[in-house]
């Protein structure tokens, strides 16, 4: 038994690593730039120029805090052409573009030269002062100057983000056209020429063969995954110490928002799993006891049909029938408490009494979704046990049928039901999303739902990782429990 437990716990660890890797991979593939999101959430106002200076600083801080200036993983497998310092480039879209360009040309030096010439051009463009130009040349209006300059800036911006071979020449043509039509932009001529030169260089000095040679680079512990998981000992504590990162919506740490919600979801699913067991075990026993009777057959059919009924349909039907002024308005439609009367200082009993009507429909739905499944398992398990030899022996020695079923058969038929706990658990967590959304219960499910609508990826990943962990703990407990009740397991 002890040996089995140790072995089981040892297989638990690689699974945890796998889950953390999976959530990490999903999180780094989330679209959009987290820095942009967070700096927007920080809400910096002020004039455009002030903002660009201030926001740049804020962005840099955020980037540092999130560890985005670090390489992604301990090692990376790329090709020989790819740069191992690319992660230092700040802008996410620039980074992707540089990667694509490197893939096209195979020469990182040429690409970085091209990139820096583009940045030079951008810098030169930013120094174009429309007011000064207008002051020097009275023939020009501020509007035309601004428009031309803005257009030019736009082209630079898009060049920084595209690697498309058909689009880039078009952009160059447009910029040339702008330069020809507007003399006041002549300061940009030289930098633009440099950009074009380095662009041509990309192909002249192309070393495409390099992209066909795989290369591994090693970064060590200073990487995003390590930081995410273990923290850096300073401002980031790491996932393992309960630091889940920052929500994009309000820049608040996620762990402060999540625990209460985990509690709500968890207690709801535990209550309903308990109720489901309470109902389904007697049903299963009864059907197996009266096997092939009309009652058993009828019950099997009903259970089967219920089993096929999606829980969100049941929930909506319940709402339609029991929380609808047109039919019966017995229960409130949503939430778990009435904010106008609810008092957080109430005793536990008062709270429970207040919340009861809110919780009845959700609990019915929750329970429903596992009970049909459980009853069927219970019935099959019972039938299996009843046909065993030792049951026949018990009958043969003259025990009453009730005693045979309840004392001898029941204990063994419970075994499969225990293992099923591990299967029910993830079902309860996954299913809770839909049910919580329907009844607006402020638990983890609604949190995930809202964060998906708001693209709040850290929150989604947190909930995913947490429920993965919890589910695995559920499996572990179920397996250990199984080993306790069934001594045959440990000898395997």
């Amino acid at each position, binding site marked *: 038994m002890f040996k089995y437990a140790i072995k089981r716990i040892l297989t638990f660890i690689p699974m945890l690593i796998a*889950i953390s890797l999976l*959530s990490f991979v999903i999180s780094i593939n989330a679209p959009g730039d987290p820095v942009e999101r967070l700096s927007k959430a920080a809400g910096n106002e002020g004039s455009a120029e002030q903002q660009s200076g201030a926001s740049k600083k804020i962005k840099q801080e955020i980037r540092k805090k999130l560890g985005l200036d670090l390489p992604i993983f301990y090692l990376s497998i790329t090709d020989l052409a790819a740069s191992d310092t690319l992660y230092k480039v700040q802008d996410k879209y620039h980074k992707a573009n540089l990667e694509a360009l490197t893939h096209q040309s195979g020469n990182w030096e040429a690409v970085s030269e091209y990139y820096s010439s583009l940045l030079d051009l951008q810098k030169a463009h930013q120094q174009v002062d429309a007011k000064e130009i207008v002051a020097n040349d009275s023939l020009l209006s501020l509007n035309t100057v601004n428009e031309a300059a803005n257009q030019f800036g736009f082209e630079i911006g898009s060049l920084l983000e595209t690697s498309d071979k058909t689009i880039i020449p078009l952009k160059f043509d447009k910029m040339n056209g702008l330069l020809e039509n507007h003399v006041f932009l002549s300061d940009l001529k030289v930098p633009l020429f440099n950009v074009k030169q380095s662009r041509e260089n990309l192909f002249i000095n192309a070393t495409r063969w390099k992209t066909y040679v795989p290369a591994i680079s090693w970064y060590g512990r200073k990487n995003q995954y390590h930081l995410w998981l273990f923290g850096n000992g300073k401002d980031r504590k790491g996932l393992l110490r309960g630091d889940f990162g920052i929500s994009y919506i309000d820049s608040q740490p996620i762990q402060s928002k999540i625990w209460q919600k985990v509690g709500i979801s968890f207690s709801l699913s535990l209550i309903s799993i308990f109720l489901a067991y309470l109902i389904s075990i007697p049903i299963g026993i009864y059907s197996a006891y009266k096997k092939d009777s009309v009652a058993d057959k009828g019950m099997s059919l009903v259970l*089967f049909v219920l089993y096929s009924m*999606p829980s969100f349909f049941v929930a909506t039907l319940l*709402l339609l029938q029991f929380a609808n002024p047109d039919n019966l308005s017995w229960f409130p439609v949503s939430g778990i408490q009435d904010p106008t009367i609810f008092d957080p200082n109430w005793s536990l009993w008062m709270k429970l009494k207040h919340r009861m009507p809110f919780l009845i429909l959700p609990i019915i739905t929750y329970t429903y979704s596992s009970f049909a499944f459980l009853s069927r398992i219970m019935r099959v398990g019972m*039938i299996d046990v009843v046909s065993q030899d030792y049951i026949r022996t018990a009958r043969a020695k003259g025990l009453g049928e009730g005693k045979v079923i309840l004392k001898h058969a029941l204990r063994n038929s419970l075994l499969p039901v225990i293992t099923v706990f591990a299967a029910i658990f993830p079902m309860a967590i*996954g299913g809770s999303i839909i049910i919580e959304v329907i009844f607006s219960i402020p638990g983890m499910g609604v949190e*995930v739902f809202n964060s*998906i609508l708001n693209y709040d990826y850290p929150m989604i990943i947190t909930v*995913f990782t947490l429920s993965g962990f919890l589910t695995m703990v559920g499996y572990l407990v179920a397996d250990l429990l199984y080993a306790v009740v069934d001594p045959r397991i440990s000898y395997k």
Partner: protein
Amino acid sequence: MQNTNENFSFKKYAWAQFKKNKIALVSLYLLLALVIIALFAPYIANDRPLYAVYEGNTLYPAFASDTRTDSIYNAEGNFLQVLQYDITDWRQLDLTSVVWTPIPYSPGSMDRYNRDYAAPSGKQRFKNSEGKIIDIPSKFRHKLGTDGIGRDLASGLIHGTRISLMVGLVSMGIASLIGIILGALAGFFGDTKLKMPRIKYWLTLFGFFMGLFYGFGQRKYILSEAFSEGIGDGMIAMLISVGVVIGITMLFRMLSKAIQFEWLNKEVSVPMDTFVSRGIELLNSIPRLLLIITITAVVERSIWIVMIIIGITGWTGIARFTRAEFLRIRSLEFVQAAESLGYSSIRTIFKHALPNALAPVFVSIAFGIASAILIESGLSFLGIGVPDDIVTWGSLLNLGRQNLEAWWLIIYPGMAIFITITIYNMIAEASRDALDPRLKS
């Protein structure tokens, strides 16, 4: 059952057993009906009539492509107007002779005279060809009502059938492919049976890694370009990539023959079963719906991607059944005969063993389809992953949830989902009983 009978075949026996279950048989016919509805959806529910005569021109609008544009001339040859098929309101045209589809509405078209949840039996309005608003003629009545923006529910349900069947087909197609191959390899070879020289084992792993590098790493941009062109191009590029992976792995395997060293050529066994079983365990230990929701959150919203994700996360059950079946089959005489005849493992597995292992796998596929449909409708109920403009049963039900007064938006789509899932479950259960007589109690 007389097994000595000359004409005895397992298929016939199983079919006879299946037919005994009347409910399952009815389910099978219902499934057939669903398939027919799905195939002919555009001719059952469509804005455009099947046949129309307009100013002397005979048209077949429902059969034409959406973007078709016709210039209409009257009997004297004078130009009248340009008809663009998909934006023309055919109900307003003065058609001399017309055959409408049974439900004269498309799933996405909005009837602006019956907005705000027109009840099935309530008052509905209609604008006739003279431009007057009248009580709706029974032909054009929204027999199952409309939603908030005037889309016909019956039409949505008919076209939703397509989606739900597609979900089952595509996602379980992917899941079966992965599940059967992995399950078969794990079950057939176990942990000890697949032996190869150490060098070959290593080079295979290395070749697989190189294959991934060239097939997916190197082709990353080609792949993403192809997928942005369309799902079909993307799939072709994907197939090429998979081909590259397989090809390079094979190349390295062949290379291993050239290397001859005592120690390197020692036979080692490949723990195939451990690999697959751990993978199954890992995938099973993540709440599936949550995994799917998390992935759909970071990828583009598309019904195809949802199907693929459901497929990729849904193979574990099939793999488990296939594995168990192969564990049983591999010790049977005919497999040993095939092996002793010197057939390659691949041939033995896929040509001789697999056909005999498919029966229980079929059952788990049928159950899998039911759960795939359940997941898809759950997702579109939440409005996650599936684009808003695609009308599915789940999204219709969601509209009903948001407006409980529109009971028709709850009952009908809900029943459609429920009946479809029941059909698949019934068929699965009955075929399990029929295919595996041991389980029959």
